[in-house]
């Protein structure tokens, strides 16, 4: 078994026992990236030089017997939504294409403190808005299992790079399913922690009350390893929860006896692909064969989840993205051209004696805002900003935003009631497997339905994980979603690990073609 096909936990043992060096491990992944990422395009930037430098330092320190961080020498890929000090953080947008943060996100600071090696920044839908990574302002990422398909999104690069063995560990963010859906599409393990479990400081905000950072990896065990480093209360994030942080790895091998699994009636209705349904059914049987009791439950308000999500998330996004106005940092329109255009327009209006036109002509500041924002943002981002601004405007706010908040509360109540009877909720991660590139770009509504089974967890603030549970006849992975009550990541990871001890779907890797299409 080559280095790049080993789980992170095993690599860590090899590194600790000095059987391999951090430089060797890092180089192996950099080689894999060099060979195949021209085709997968999971990275926006690869930090080869600094990664190797850091790896060499770690090897030296290990050689001198110095204490090292808990991820010492393990490469980690980071979704380009997390600020990295001195390293361009674009958020998949032209708006921030050249933005170099002067600070690290808390998650990045913790990874650095753990001596993880930041290998690169991964591609994503612009501002994490999308489910296919096609909304990246730079290029779409492809699915390593079938490069004509999308890897899902918005953490498409984060999932694809793990599936393609370009990084053992990867950080994503999940606002409505953005970790779990691409994990499902790419056949990797992806965890969305409870809201408040992982600090959002330095995570470029999409929808602040829904965003959560989480790990993607080959196995549940590896996800637990990465979560242990990045989770925990952060005084810089008021919404980060001051709760105890368990060691997610300590008991992961212990099977959950008498596990009560809830099967959401509403998640097995129309729209669910047959092959996905069959694979998920098989997975549930696997749990039953290990003593789990399965019972049907209902989340009656889940049918409103998509509608609720697509009010709340755009409302918050419209506000969070107001700061990108071309004034302080980020993209700014060509000012000279803008002023010349304005002068020309003024001249023509004056010549035509158009008083009203002159009175309504943009001020230079207004035009700067208008052009910087319309040139700097892509269509999906603009769509959501407009949706949100509309839903928050006077006369509509009560009908949309305020009502959505009420439904959100009901969705949470549904979960609270369900978790009185069951320990975990089980079902498909997505209605279908990975779809073709370009297939849904003109149908945003169909794209939004991708989030059908995942958004509720964000609205309720609970934890969820996607693990591979099968393959379709066309050779695409199927994702199984498990959901747990707030702050029960340990239970979630143990259940996922239990499943992975019994199955080998998580060990399957695509055959990659090196040549670029």
């Amino acid at each position, binding site marked *: 078994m080559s280095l790049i096909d080993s789980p992170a936990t095993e690599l860590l043992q090899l590194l600790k026992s000095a059987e391999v060096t951090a430089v060797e491990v890092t180089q192996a992944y950099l080689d894999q990236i060099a060979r195949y990422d021209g085709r997968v395009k999971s990275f926006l930037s690869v930090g080869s030089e600094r990664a190797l430098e850091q790896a060499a330092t770690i090897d030296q320190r290990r050689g001198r017997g110095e204490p090292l961080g808990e991820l010492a020498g393990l490469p980690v890929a980071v979704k380009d939504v997390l600020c990295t000090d001195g390293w361009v953080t674009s958020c998949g947008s032209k708006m921030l294409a050249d*933005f170099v943060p002067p600070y690290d996100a808390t998650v990045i600071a913790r990874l650095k403190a753990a001596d993880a090696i930041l290998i690169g920044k991964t591609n994503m839908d612009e501002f994490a808005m999308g489910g296919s990574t096609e909304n990246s302002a730079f290029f779409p990422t492809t699915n390593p299992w079938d490069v004509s398909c999308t890897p899902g999104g918005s953490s498409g690069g984060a999932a694809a790079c793990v599936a393609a063995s370009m990084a053992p560990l990867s950080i994503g963010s999940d606002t409505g399913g953005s970790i779990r859906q691409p994990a499902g599409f790419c056949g990797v393990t992806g965890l969305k922690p409870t809201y408040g479990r992982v600090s959002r400081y330095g995570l470029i905000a999409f929808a602040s009350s829904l965003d959560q950072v989480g790990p993607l990896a080959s196995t549940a065990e590896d996800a637990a390893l990465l979560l242990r480093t990045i989770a925990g209360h952060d005084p810089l994030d*008021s919404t980060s929860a001051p709760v105890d942080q368990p060691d997610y790895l300590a008991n992961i091998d212990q099977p959950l006896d008498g596990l009560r699994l809830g099967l959401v009636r509403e998640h097995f209705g129309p729209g669910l692909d047959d092959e996905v349904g069959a694979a998920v059914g098989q997975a549930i049987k696997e749990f039953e064969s290990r003593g789990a009791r399965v019972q049907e439950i209902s989340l009656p308000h889940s049918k409103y989840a998509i509608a609720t999500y697509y009010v709340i998330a755009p409302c918050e996004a419209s506000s969070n993205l107001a700061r990108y106005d071309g004034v*302080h940092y980020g993209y700014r329109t060509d000012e000279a051209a803008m002023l010349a255009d304005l002068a020309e327009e003024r001249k023509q209006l004056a010549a035509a004696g158009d008083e009203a036109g002159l009175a309504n002509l943009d001020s230079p500041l207004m035009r700067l805002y208008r052009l910087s924002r319309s040139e700097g943002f892509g269509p999906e981002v603009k769509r959501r900003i407009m949706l949100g601004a509309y839903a*928050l405007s006077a006369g509509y706010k009560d009908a949309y935003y305020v009502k959505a908040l009420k439904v959100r509360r009901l969705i949470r109540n549904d979960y609270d009631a369900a978790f009185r009877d069951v320990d975990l909720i089980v079902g498909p991660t997505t209605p279908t497997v990975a779809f073709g590139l370009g297939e849904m770009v003109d149908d945003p509504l169909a794209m939004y339905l991708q989030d059908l089974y995942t958004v509720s967890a964000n609205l309720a603030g609970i934890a969820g994980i996607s693990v591979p549970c099968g393959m379709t006849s066309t050779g695409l992975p199927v994702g199984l979603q498990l959901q747990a009550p707030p702050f029960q990541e340990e239970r979630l990871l143990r259940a996922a690990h239990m499943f992975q001890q019994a199955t080998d779907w998580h060990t399957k890797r695509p055959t990659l073609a090196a040549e670029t299409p």
Partner: protein
Amino acid sequence: MTNTAYETIIGLEVHVQLQTNTKLFCRCSTSFGAEPNTQTCPVCIGMPGSLPVMNRQAYALGLKTAVALNCQIPEFTKWDRKQYFYPDLPKGYQISQFDLPMSEHGWLEISDPKGAFETKKIGITRAHLEDDAGKSMHDEAAGRSDSRIDLNRTGTPLLEIVSDPDLRSADEARAYLSELKLLLTYLGVSDCNMQEGSLRVDANINLHIAQGERTAATPIVEVKNMNSFRAVERALRFEANRQFESWQANPVELGSPGGHKTTRGWDDQMQITRIQREKEESSDYRYFPDPDLLPVTATEADVASVRGALGELPAALRVTLAKKYGIDAYDADVLVNQGRPLVAYFEELAAACDDGRRASNWVQQDVLRLLNEMDATIDQFPVTAAALGELLKFIAAGDIDNTRAKDVLQEMIDAQSSAAEAMAKLGIEKVDASDLESLCRELLAANPAVVADLKEGKMKAVGALIGQAKKQNPNVNPAQIKSICIELVKQL
């Protein structure tokens, strides 16, 4: 329709900068006057991914003020985003409080010792916290319009105190502001420096004009750019007149076509208000709860403990001083309005000389005059209350008169000496009673004309004798000379 009586309706919005060391949602310094953009961090300049964390001290100062303003404190308050685009607002929104402010429904009592208006309670609609915007500086030199932005002030904690439209004149508005400023100073929550922008005032004003049975309201005008209390007073006086004249020329009522709210700026040079925003703009700030911040809770016990620690506030202190020291309301008002340290000095002085009235007179006439000359505050005054008390005791004992005592106080300041030392230096000593009487006899003998006048009851004539006596011995007490001379004349 000329000479129609009208009533002026005024409400004030005051923004007070709270005296914290750091900003409302980050750890940057709030000190004034630093190099532009040196007191900034990713949070207050709104960089991607940065998050606000509330400054508990700012909330505590806001709560203290709200309690002192007799406001109701809800158990639960939250933060909202007020959204608009402006270059000095880097996040694209201000973090403020919309529908659940930290306090509402309070009042502040105002009065005028000179009786220009009756004592009344002005309602406080609400007081809420928000973060300040930055400063835009427009440089239109050299034919190009160049704007520069200083974000040092961005994120500074402000308390916005909104009054009900209960004020009925520019005098009342001025009194409200003075009393509010005094209260804030007593509480130690703000330095209230208008020049540095620590206290900013906007006013809403219109007129209610009697129209037979009914009352017509003129369109509301928001007046801005008033940089001193005097400017507020003048701007409101001007604006009331302007609105009345405008009404007489063309009676447009509030809410009727053309009767929308407008914004005018005070031009201090020209002493007029000028239109700033004519268009009717329904500014939609798209308020919504800030998802980055947690709601803040205040229990009844929290509020009670804040209330218990307030100390005696100006309104109560005026009553206490008048009662305890036997001084009249006017004097108590003057003392209290000078601030808590001066009141402390006065109380110590009154205790030292055991005479509240005398202490009050000396503080008001001499201490305040000297402080003014020295351009100093009471804590810089070189004579302690105990030392001045000693001097006032000499006066009470008749050892020295008020006029000479003023010289002694000056000497105490100049030589940094005690009252006794200063009196010795000036050669002031008590004149023996028998010496006084023989001096008076000599003077009467030498001034038969004065004696004649006194016999006729022209008591003012004694003044000439006092003058001569002081020439012969500067230490004599004029009051004693007067009474001895009158007594002797009676015996003649």
